Every structure is written in structure tokens, then in C-alpha cells.
């Protein structure tokens, strides 16, 4: 059965059916995004931290705005060309629209990627350090000589697997291990399997639930692992995710951070921020911070003599959220460049190369850290609503582009047989596409600019 009124208007509504359908759908979409924008207001009014303004990459956001507006123009042009039976131009406009959607999503991916690689560390005094982790938060152990492994007799979720869960974290080459029988082995899949099998046999004979194996390293071993890669640790033991325990000495559990920003807005006396402790950024950076801060404050006093300094969020940010652009403090006088905001993301591909570091590297002690996170929803409510809104919007871009791409690629038969019907389809797809643009028109200023 054919769907009625796909080309001509239904007499009682005065519209072809798909059009009334898409408008009902868009009405529900307005509710969906309306609820989320309402959540945005709620979160912003209730935020107990300075709401980020101009913290995202404004250039990238603006490019995406222009791209979406351009695609809105081309999709309505595609419809008009179809109505005028200029099929070549219809195809070109439609292709540009889909291409714009692809550009938008690529930009979005770059933006997300930079956020995932960028970290914020909150220190105990309220200072927020931003930067990149060259090799993250590492637990380092030294002088490990003994490994105790446990293999359950019955099949179990946790069973010793040193090849998969222990060996990868040894620094340098894995040494030879001595078994309890005095046999010297190189630990690999085959030797461990035979070791485990004989241990399980013994445990079965002794009627025990699990077999324990002790291995003694020929030379002391060093371990380095991220907290997520192990199960737990104390000052003398480290437990791996397969249940294996190593006994040794904790060398350090510190976090290495290439600092690109010091946010002292949460500190009562900003120049005394823990970030400028001699163990961390030190006096030279403190001087640069103070000179930048005083420069912005005096500039504000000159430009806006009647305004309250403490009430200007922009001034607070410019003066107290200090951006570090080089590995060493700038010389006197060149400390306060006119760069603001968006350059907070250092290049994402920036790996661990110590030679060409663009930022000072500090090693933070665990006791000075209250919280750390990359720039993801868990950092704060701003990033929570940012990812919710832009993620949902991105999903709409993808779906809209797929629908338009379908019309372009697979609806050629309809184009030749019944162009009026295809024009209606394109109009409906276009209406959805304009709605996606319309949402972005509000998202861009609310998340990037204001």
C-alpha cells in the first residue's frame, strides 16, 4: 500500500503528510533540547566555581558555525533547484551539504580529542593546574624480589596470569625467576602454564581450594604502572589485577604534569598558591604570575574606573587564570602578552618528548592533590552539560547527514520518475537540517562565548 498524500496536499490539513509529520517531530525535538537548555541555566546559576567563558576553542566553534550556516543555505538551494528541475545543481548543493556535515564532525572530533588529552588537577589549597600528562600518574616500585601468585583449583574469574598482568609493567628486561623447586625459568605463557598445572595438582592432593606459587627474581625488579593498570598498592606491596602480589618498596606515587595553566581563582591569596611552591613552579613563575595579574588589574582600573573589580568575571579570569606559554618563565616586561582564553589546549599530539617541551614539567605529590580529571563530564557541571548538549547535537548532525546522503545517492529513480515527490522528501529532510542549525545557533554562544 502506498502512503497517501506524499506529493499533493491532504485537503483537510492543506499539507502533504510528511510535512505535518516532520513538524510534529520537530515540536518534540524543541522539548528535548528545551529541557537540556533549561538544565544548562539551572547548572550555571548553581555553579560554585567560575563558569568557563571563552575556554573552548572559539575559532573552531566559529568555523563550525559558518559551516553549518553554509550547509543550511545549500540544503534549501537543493530543494529550490529540484523544484526548478535543475537536477545537476540539486546534486551539487546536496553534496556540499553532506560535505559540510562531515567537516563539522571532523572539527568536533578534534575538539573532543583535545579535551580528553587535557587534564585539570586541583591542589589542596584550591589552585587548579591544567596541563598534559607525559606519562600520567605512575606508581613506581623498586627492589621487588618476590612474586606470590595464586591459581584457583576450580575455574575462576581471577586467576594468576603474570604474562598478561605483571610482566608488562617491569621496567627494563624481565629477569629469570626461581621456582620453589630451585628451577630457574624465563616467565612466559608455556613455562607458567606447566608451573600452574603442577601447582594445581599439588593443591588438589592436599585438598586446598587454590594453589599458591612463589617466584623469586634472580635480580631485583623495578615496576612502573598507572593506577588503573593495577589493583592496589601499599608502601611495601603491589597487587596486580590478576591477584598477584609483589613485595618491594614504593619509590613514588607522583603525578607528572606539563603545566599550561595556573588557575588561582579559588585561592584567597593568589600569589601564595601552592603552584608556586619551590618543589613545583617556583619563584620565577610566581613573579611572572604577579606581574601579569597586576598588569591586568591596573589596566582594568584605568579602562573602567567606576566598576567593581571583584565583580568582573573577565578580569578575574585574565588576572588569576595564568597561561604558561613556554618551558621557562618569560623575562620581565614580556609577561603579559595579549593572548587570552582559547589557546589553553596545547597541541594534542604533544607526547612525552622532554627536549622540545613547551611547558614546565612539575612532579606533584599525592598529598597535595585533591582531585584530578581530564576535561570530561566528571570535571565539572559545565563540561557535563557541554558534552551532553554537543554530543546530542552531533548525533543529530550525523543522522541528518545520513538522511540527506540517502536522498542524494539512492533516490535517483525517484528523481527521474517523480521529482515532485523527491522535492518534498528533500524539503522534509531540509527542515530537520535547519533545526539542527538552529540548535547550534544557541549552543555556540552559550558554550563558547558567554
Amino acid at each position, binding site marked *: 500500500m502506498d502512503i497517501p498524500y506524499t506529493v499533493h496536499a491532504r485537503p483537510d490539513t*492543506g499539507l502533504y503528510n510528511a510535512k*505535518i509529520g516532520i513538524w510534529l517531530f520537530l515540536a518534540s525535538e524543541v522539548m528535548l533540547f528545551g529541557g537540556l537548555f533549561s538544565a544548562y541555566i539551572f547548572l550555571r546559576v548553581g555553579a560554585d566555581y567560575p563558569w568557563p567563558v571563552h575556554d573552548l576553542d572559539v575559532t573552531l566553534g566559529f568555523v563550525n558555525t559558518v559551516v553549518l550556516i553554509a550547509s543550511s543555505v545549500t540544503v534549501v*538551494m537543493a530543494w529550490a533547484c529540484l523544484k526548478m528541475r535543475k537536477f545537476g545543481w540539486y546534486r551539487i548543493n546536496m553534496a556540499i551539504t553532506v560535505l559540510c556535515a562531515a567537516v563539522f564532525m571532523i572539527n568536533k572530533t578534534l575538539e573532543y580529542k583535545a579535551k580528553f588529552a587535557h587534564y585539570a588537577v586541583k591542589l589542596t589549597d584550591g589552585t587548579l593546574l591544567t596541563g598534559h600528562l607525559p606519562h600520567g600518574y605512575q606508581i613506581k616500585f623498586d627492589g621487588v624480589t618476590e612474586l606470590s601468585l595464586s591459581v584457583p583449583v576450580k575455574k575462576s574469574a581471577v586467576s594468576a596470569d603474570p604474562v598478561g598482568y605483571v610482566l608488562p609493567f617491569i621496567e627494563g628486561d624481565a629477569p629469570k625467576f626461581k621456582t620453589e623447586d630451585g628451577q630457574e625459568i624465563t616467565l612466559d605463557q608455556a613455562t607458567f602454564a606447566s608451573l600452574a598445572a603442577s601447582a594445581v595438582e599439588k593443591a588438589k592432593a592436599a585438598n586446598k581450594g587454590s594453589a599458591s606459587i612463589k617466584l623469586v627474581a634472580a635480580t631485583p625488579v623495578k615496576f612502573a604502572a598507572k593506577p588503573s593498570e593495577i589493583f592496589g598498592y601499599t608502601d611495601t606491596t603491589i597487587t596486580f589485577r590478576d591477584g598477584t602480589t609483589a613485595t618491594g618498596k614504593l619509590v613514588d606515587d607522583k603525578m607528572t604534569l606539563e603545566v599550561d595553566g595556573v588557575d588561582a581563582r579559588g585561592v584567597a591569596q593568589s600569589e601564595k598558591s601552592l603552584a608556586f611552591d619551590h618543589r613545583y613552579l617556583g619563584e620565577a613563575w610566581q613573579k611572572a604570575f604577579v606581574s601579569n595579574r597586576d598588569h591586568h588589574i591596573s589596566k582594568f582600573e584605568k579602562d573602567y574606573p567606576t566598576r567593581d573589580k571583584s565583580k568582573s568575571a573577565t578580569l578575574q579570569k585574565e588576572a588569576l587564570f595564568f597561561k604558561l606559554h613556554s618551558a621557562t618563565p618569560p623575562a620581565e616586561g614580556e609577561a603579559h602578552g595579549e593572548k587570552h582564553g582559547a589557546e589553553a589546549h596545547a597541541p594534542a599530539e604533544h607526547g612525552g618528548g622532554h627536549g622540545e617541551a613547551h611547558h614546565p614539567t612539575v612532579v606533584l605529590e599525592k598529598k597535595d592533590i585533591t582531585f584530578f580529571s581530564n576535561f570530561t563530564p566528571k570535571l565539572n557541571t559545565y563540561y557535563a552539560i557541554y558534552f551532553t548538549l554537543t554530543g546530542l547535537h552531533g548525533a543529530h548532525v550525523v543522522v541528518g547527514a545520513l538522511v540527506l546522503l540517502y536522498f542524494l545517492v539512492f533516490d535517483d529513480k525517484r528523481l527521474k520518475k517523480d521529482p515532485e515527490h523527491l522535492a518534498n522528501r528533500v524539503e522534509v529532510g531540509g527542515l530537520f537540517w535547519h533545526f539542527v542549525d538552529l540548535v547550534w545557533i544557541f549552543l555556540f554562544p552559550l558554550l563558547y562565548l558567554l
Partner: protein
Amino acid sequence: MADNIEAIQKSVKKYIAIGALLIFFSGLTVALSYIELPTHGLNILVGMILATIKAALVALIFMHLNHERSTIYKILAFTAVFAIVLFVLFVLSHDDPLTFSGFYSPVDR
């Protein structure tokens, strides 16, 4: 509905002009966001007014709402009412109608 060919032919130029206008307004929004108005609330207000103008242009011209059938306006009237309710909901958290506590005053951010 602009269903006759002549009307559509005329509107093609209009679409491009509106697109250019939208990009201009976007640039203006970015520029204005870097200017410090007496309060940041004013910055937000100006930004939102510009965004609303842009949204109106998209809805009226690109989505043809400047000449649609009455059925669609009727649907949208309901949407508008519900959307307004959604945006007013947060006020309830601010001025609690049961205890009239008003748990904090909005800070100028």
C-alpha cells in the same frame, strides 16, 4: 507555500543573502562577547538577542515559516507554551514557593 517556479527562482537570491547575514551576525556575536559590558549578564542578554534574531531568520526564511499553513502554526503554538514552561521551571528552584527560602542570590558571572 512558494510552490510556483517564479517565486522559487526569486527566493534563491534571498537564501544566499540570508546566509551571509547569518554569518555576519555570528561574527558580531563573537566580537561582542570580547567587549566587557557593565555586567556579564548584559553580555549574555545581547548574545541571546542576536542568537534569537538568527534563529528567527532560519525559521522564517529557510524553514518557510513566514508563509505556512495554519495547521503548523497550531502545532507550534503548543510547542511554544511547553517550551516556556520548561524554561520557567528553574525559577522554582530559585524562589521556593513552599518555603520562600530563595536559597541563594544569583551571582553576577
